[in-house]
Structure formats: structure tokens, C-alpha cells
């Protein structure tokens, strides 16, 4: 499987008469773009705003991030989700780099939504403050979940994906500025040099905790709760086979942009043929029932063993209940003789002294830790808020609260906020960007 990602490096984004990309400047016809958003009649109100690194802007509740892309030769950028099923990971896909489509609720947030500060001291808490972002702020008529803490956010998330496809299509006839090539020979057809290196699999545990359909990550449009682990080509993951869900506390979440750019996959590719033989991805999940966790761990260990893996990297999209899957998977791999490194974040509580993962095992002796969901963050008021600031407190965002006897509300009268890192949009960057780590004090 061979994938070419053709890159266009966006230096600035402006609104204008015609949606086009010219010499680093991405121009968006707002009216046309909003028409794409409103193709879904459930979108009742919508606006677009452009935000850039350093802008004194606070975005909340942020629901999703997507990289604008276009698939050469036709086909949706998210097969089985925004269009018909087709194989992802082959051929050429064009990408507008250094920018994302951010989807923000005009009023209502939920457990899974997050916050982004584009400037000021809060900017360091998320990856997305470094990007130029096209922000879709919208509301829907999804009355059944308007006041629910857990929201599927379907209309908004799909609107974001349509918008990303629409924007991405403006480069469809252009030659990319750079091309990255991702190619792996079939596992049994590798060169002698490749075969002589340690064989490594990447095990991904995307979010799948909700029994009801509509909240979990999707694999080619298929709910990850309804699958057992399966072997995938890494190209599929970075070419739109996976989309993010709408369930996990936000700092632990992997956005669709995160899947499209998965740094751990790209890093393993870099090492391929030099220090490791990158076999591919075992796509697992994070279901809640113990039997399902154990079944997933069995599948993963068997697949790794059958593929001849000497080593594995396991990454979990979540904390709390999913820690049980994470540790069970590492233990199963170690028991199968596969040397394993875990990639996760921690939850050490208000005093920092709580057990960092819900489940622990001494076999999980190699873990890279990307952050702490419990970290308390206080940020000053921001000049501009896109969305609705009160949602952080009112709507049960995982890192916000309406009332606390000592701390008061997450949203203070002057517009300053106090929150747990938990609600920072994809803040712990467990996909691999994180330059945070955890230390003992």
C-alpha cells in the first residue's frame, strides 16, 4: 500500500470572493462554505470565524478538529462516513497543512467538549493554538440531547467534515508543494534488511466505551464498540479510515485531525528500515465490560504473535475505565513475549497523590506519560469568546463544574476560568505530540 500525502502549507486564511489557495493564502467564500454546512437541515444557525496563533480568543465548547483534504481520483476523505466505502491509504491525498477546521457549539457543550485559548498563557495547553483555524460555530435542532451532558454532536461533527472536504477541494487541480510518501511492503514481502530489524506493531485503542451507537470513534463508518481488534495498514489511519467520536473527556480525546496526522505512526515510519521493521497497526478498542476488555487483549496478543512482532507500542484514547484495557493489553503482549511500551496520560487527582492509572501491573514497565487530566488550570478573561463561555461550567464539560464549595464555578464573573486540564481540547496529545511529561514532587 502506497500513500502520497501532497501538502500545501497555509500561511494565512482570509474570507473572499472565491474559495481558493494561492501562494500560501487560503481564501474562503463564506457564503458558499456555509451553504455546505447547511446542507444538513439540522443545522439551524452557523457562522465561520478565522482564528490564528496569538489571537486573544477563547473557543469553547470545541467539539472536533479536522484537516481540510482532498482525495485525488475521487472519493470521500472519510470513506464510509462522508461518502461511499472505499479503501483508504492508497494513492494521493492532498492536505492543507498548518490549519484545521474547528467545530464549536454556538451555545451547548457536553462531557466530551473542550476549550482552546489561541493566545496568552492558556495557549500552551493545546496543539490547536499553533494552527490557523477555520472555526465553524453552529447550533442544531437536536433537541433530544440539547440538555444532555453526553452529546453525539452528529450534525456539527458531520458539518465539520463536509466543510473540511469543501475547503480541501480548492487544491484539487494543483501540484502540492511537498509530497510525503508512506509505503510498506506486505508483511511477508519485506527485504532481508527490513526483516533483520526488530519487528514492531502499533496497537491503537480508540474510544468505544458507549454501548449506544453514535458516540464512539468510527472505523470506515463502523462503530468501534462493535468490533474486535483487527490488523490495519497505518496508511488507512492517516488517510481518513478513522474519525473521532464524541464521548471521551477532552484532554484524552483524539480528534479526527489527530488521526489524520497521527505523529506516532509517522515516527514509526521514520524508523522503518533503519532501526525497526514497522509491521503495521493493530486497531483495538476500549469497551467497558471486563469480558470485552479481555477478549480484545487476547486478540491483540495473538495477532502480534502471529505477525512475529518483537515489540509493540500501545496507545489508549482515554483514562479511568480504559486504563484497564491499556494495562490488560500490555500484560497480554508481555506475556506473549512482545516487549511493549505504553503511551498514555494520567489522572492523579486534585492533590496529585492518587494512583495515576486505574489499573496497574508491574509488567507495564515502560510507559511514556503525556500529561495529567487532573491538573488545575486558572486562566484570565479573554477579549473574545467564540461559542459560549458558560458552557464550561453549565454543561458538564469533563474539566468544568457549576459549583464547588471552595473553588466556586469554573466560569467566574469577570470571565476568568478555573478548570481541570481534562477539558483542554485534545490537550494531552497522546497521539505523540506531547512535550509534557509527569514527574513526582
Amino acid at each position, binding site marked *: 500500500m502506497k500513500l502520497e500525502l501532497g501538502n500545501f502549507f497555509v500561511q494565512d486564511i482570509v474570507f473572499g470572493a472565491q474559495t481558493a489557495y494561492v501562494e500560501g493564502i487560503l481564501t474562503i467564500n463564506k457564503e458558499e462554505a456555509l451553504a455546505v454546512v447547511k446542507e444538513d437541515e439540522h443545522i439551524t444557525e452557523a457562522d465561520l470565524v478565522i482564528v490564528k496563533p496569538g489571537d486573544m480568543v477563547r473557543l469553547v465548547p470545541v467539539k472536533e478538529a479536522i484537516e481540510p483534504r482532498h482525495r485525488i481520483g475521487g472519493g470521500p476523505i472519510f470513506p464510509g462516513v462522508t461518502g461511499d466505502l472505499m479503501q483508504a491509504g492508497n494513492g494521493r491525498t492532498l492536505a492543507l497543512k498548518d490549519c484545521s477546521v474547528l467545530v464549536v457549539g454556538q451555545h451547548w457543550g457536553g*462531557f466530551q467538549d473542550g476549550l482552546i485559548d489561541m493566545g496568552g498563557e492558556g495557549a500552551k495547553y493545546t496543539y490547536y493554538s499553533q494552527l490557523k483555524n477555520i472555526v465553524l460555530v453552529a447550533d442544531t435542532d437536536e433537541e433530544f440531547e440539547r440538555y444532555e*451532558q*453526553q452529546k453525539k454532536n452528529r450534525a456539527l461533527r458531520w458539518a465539520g467534515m463536509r466543510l473540511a472536504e469543501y475547503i480541501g477541494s480548492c487544491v484539487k487541480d494543483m501540484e502540492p508543494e511537498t509530497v510525503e510518501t508512506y509505503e510498506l511492503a506486505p508483511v511477508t514481502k519485506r527485504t532481508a534488511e527490513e526483516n533483520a530489524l*526488530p519487528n514492531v506493531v502499533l496497537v491503537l485503542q480508540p474510544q468505544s466505551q458507549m454501548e*449506544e451507537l453514535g458516540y464512539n470513534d468510527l472505523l470506515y463508518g463502523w462503530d468501534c464498540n462493535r468490533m474486535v481488534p483487527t490488523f490495519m495498514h497505518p496508511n488507512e489511519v492517516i488517510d481518513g479510515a478513522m474519525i473521532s467520536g464524541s464521548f471521551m*473527556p477532552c484532554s484524552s480525546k483524539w480528534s479526527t485531525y489527530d488521526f489524520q496526522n497521527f*505523529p*506516532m505512526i509517522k*515516527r*514509526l515510519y521514520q*524508523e522503518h528500515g533503519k532501526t*525497526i521493521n514497522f509491521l503495521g497497526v493493530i486497531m483495538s478498542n476500549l469497551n467497558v465490560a471486563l469480558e470485552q476488555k479481555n477478549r480484545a487483549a487476547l486478540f491483540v496478543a495473538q495477532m502480534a504473535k502471529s505477525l512475529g512482532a*518483537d*515489540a509493540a*507500542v500501545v496507545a489508549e484514547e482515554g*483514562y*479511568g475505565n480504559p486504563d484497564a484495557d491499556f494495562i490488560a493489553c500490555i500484560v497480554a503482549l508481555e506475556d506473549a513475549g512482545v*516487549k511493549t*511500551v505504553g*503511551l*498514555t496520560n*494520567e489522572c*492523579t*487527582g*486534585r*492533590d*496529585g*497523590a*492518587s*494512583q*495515576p492509572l*486505574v489499573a*496497574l501491573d*508491574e509488567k*507495564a*514497565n*515502560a*510507559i*511514556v*506519560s*503525556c500529561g*495529567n487530566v487532573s*491538573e488545575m488550570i486558572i486562566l484570565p478573561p479573554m477579549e473574545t469568546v467564540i461559542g459560549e463561555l458558560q458552557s464550561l461550567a453549565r454543561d*458538564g464539560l*469533563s474539566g468544568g*463544574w457549576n459549583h464547588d464549595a471552595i473553588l466556586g464555578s469554573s466560569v467566574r464573573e469577570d470571565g476568568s476560568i478555573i478548570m*481541570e*486540564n481534562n477539558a483542554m481540547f485534545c490537550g494531552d*496529545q*497522546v497521539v*505523540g*505530540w*506531547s*512535550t*509534557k*511529561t*509527569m*514527574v*513526582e*514532587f
Partner: protein
Amino acid sequence: MKKAILYLNQFFGQIGGEELADHAPEIREGLVGPAMELQKQLGDDVQVTHTIICGDNFMGSRTQEALDTILSFLEDKEFDIFFAGPAFRAGRYGSACGNICKTVKEKFNVPVITSMNDENPGVEMFKKEMYIFKGGASAAAMRKDVAAMAKFGLKILNSEELKSADEEGYYGRGVRSQIWMESPVPATDRVIDMLLKKVQGQPFKSELPIPPSDLIPIAPAIGLGDLSKLHIAVVTSGGIVPVGNPDRIQSASATKWGKYHIADKYDLIGGEYQTIHAGFDPAAANADPDVIVPLDALRAYEKEGKIGGIHPYFYSTVGTGTTQAEAARMGREIAAELLAAGIKAAILVST
């Protein structure tokens, strides 16, 4: 000018050796023994105003009396920070430093700093509760150990950024927090580095050292005959509360629990009770709260004589995102109530 007070034992307080270990606590104005070195290391901005001296045996055998006496010395003193030791490898002295630091911290809420050698049993006893610097084995390390305590004390007093336990040189207190690395290395590079070392059998350092497991065995099973005599309590982390959540238990990362009277109830009715748990789909539990607090089934068992009765309250909190430490504390508090009520069997319903 910031003020400091130092605690010493009879030996370093220049009273005498083992034969004077029963020396009762005393407080002196000014500097005795190691206090002079501490003053020198702290410099001109901090004054060591008093030295407290107490015999190791006195502190060991009449601990409460010693602590009370010392607290009474301190009541009318102004001080911003409290030091004890260094205690090196002296076990009784280490324990004394730990005890007095813990008490002073609790009573006066000032930073407390001590220093011990890693073989001093005081380290294991007190490291979670205070800064204990990694000290030398004997008084030969006095200057170095005092310097480490003083340097860190100045950082606290000047509100400087405090680094990790390893970097500062004290024993980790079990408190984990996120930091941005000084030379940023993305997680991807850290994974590859660790992976290659692990594969090649080279030493590597996990960023999450796994602490020794802390499992509590489940109590032995109760025989059916015994069950018919016992009152059963229900405890849940599933967030069932009376509608309106009177105790304002948090929907995630809970720090509170509630108890709700059910002696006059035969069934938990949707609309009267609800779940406030944010970590699962609440539809089934809101429609029939008995799926989490199975009062209807227990009443049936009670009627059939399978169980002796039902505790008049059920206990509830929320498990999602709730830290292990908070969960353990709430568990202990609820268990204490149940034990006081003579309850010997409980159903713990998770979700």
C-alpha cells in the same frame, strides 16, 4: 525579614549524649549548634530566631507530651518556615524530626523541611507528608545537608518555581504532576528511545514507575444460613441520588458521597431517584434506579427470609474520573459508618 525556627535533638543541641536523651523539650532564643550553619546558608533575608531542643528518648516515649510542649512554645512565635535536623542515619532522631514537622505543619500551616539518610526509618514513615532531603550517613555531611535544606527553604520563601523531587533532592512525596520538559522532546521520540532500549536489553526509565500494588482482599464469603440473620447495606459508585441531588455530589471526579434513607421504601422509583453519574448512558438507571440500588430485589429477599433485613440507608457517590485516593477515603468513611451500625455485609454496586 522572614523568620525560621530549627528543631534539634539533645546531642546536636549540645546538651549531651545518650545519657541525656530524656531531656525535656526547651526553646532557646538564637542559634545553637547546626542553627548557626543554617543561618549562614539562609543569608541575610531570613533570621533563625529560635532553636528547639528535645531529647530523643523523651520524644520517643512521651511523644504527645513533647509535641504539646513544643506547640505551646511556638504559639506566640512568628515564623514563616520550620526546619528539623538533619537527622542523618539516627533512627530516633529521624522519627522525632518527622513527628515535629508533621505537627507543626498541621498546626501552623508553614512549610516544614527536614533531612535524613535513606536508611533512616523516618524516611518511609514521613516522606509522603513533608520535604525530607536526601542526607548523608553521619554528621560529616552536616554542612552539605543543611545547605540543601536552606536552599530549598529559600526557594519556597521566595515563591520560586519548585522542581521535581529528583531535581530538588528530596524523597518523592507520591505527588505526581505534569511538567513541560525544559528541552522539549515529543512523546514520539521518547517512545522510540524507550522501545529501542527495551528491545536491545539496555536500561531505560519508565515515565510512570509502577508503585507496589495496594490490593485489599475481599472479605470471606458469608454462608447462606448466616445471611438470613444479617442486615445488608447497599453502597454504590453509580451516582443514584434523590432527584435534585441534595448533596450536590459531582457528576465526575467526585469528592462527596451521600446517604439516603430507605427504611420506608420498597422500591426506588424513577422520577424520585436518578443517577447523576456522567460516565455511562443514564437512561436505564433513570427509568428504574433499582438496576443500580436493587432495593426491590432485596425487599423480596427480606420477605422470603433470605436476608435478615436492609440497612435503613444506602450510600452513593460517582465513580467516573474519581481518583483512587478520594475513592479510598470515601470508602473508609462509609465503612466506618456501616461498622458503627453493626453492618457485616454490603453490596458494592459499580457501573
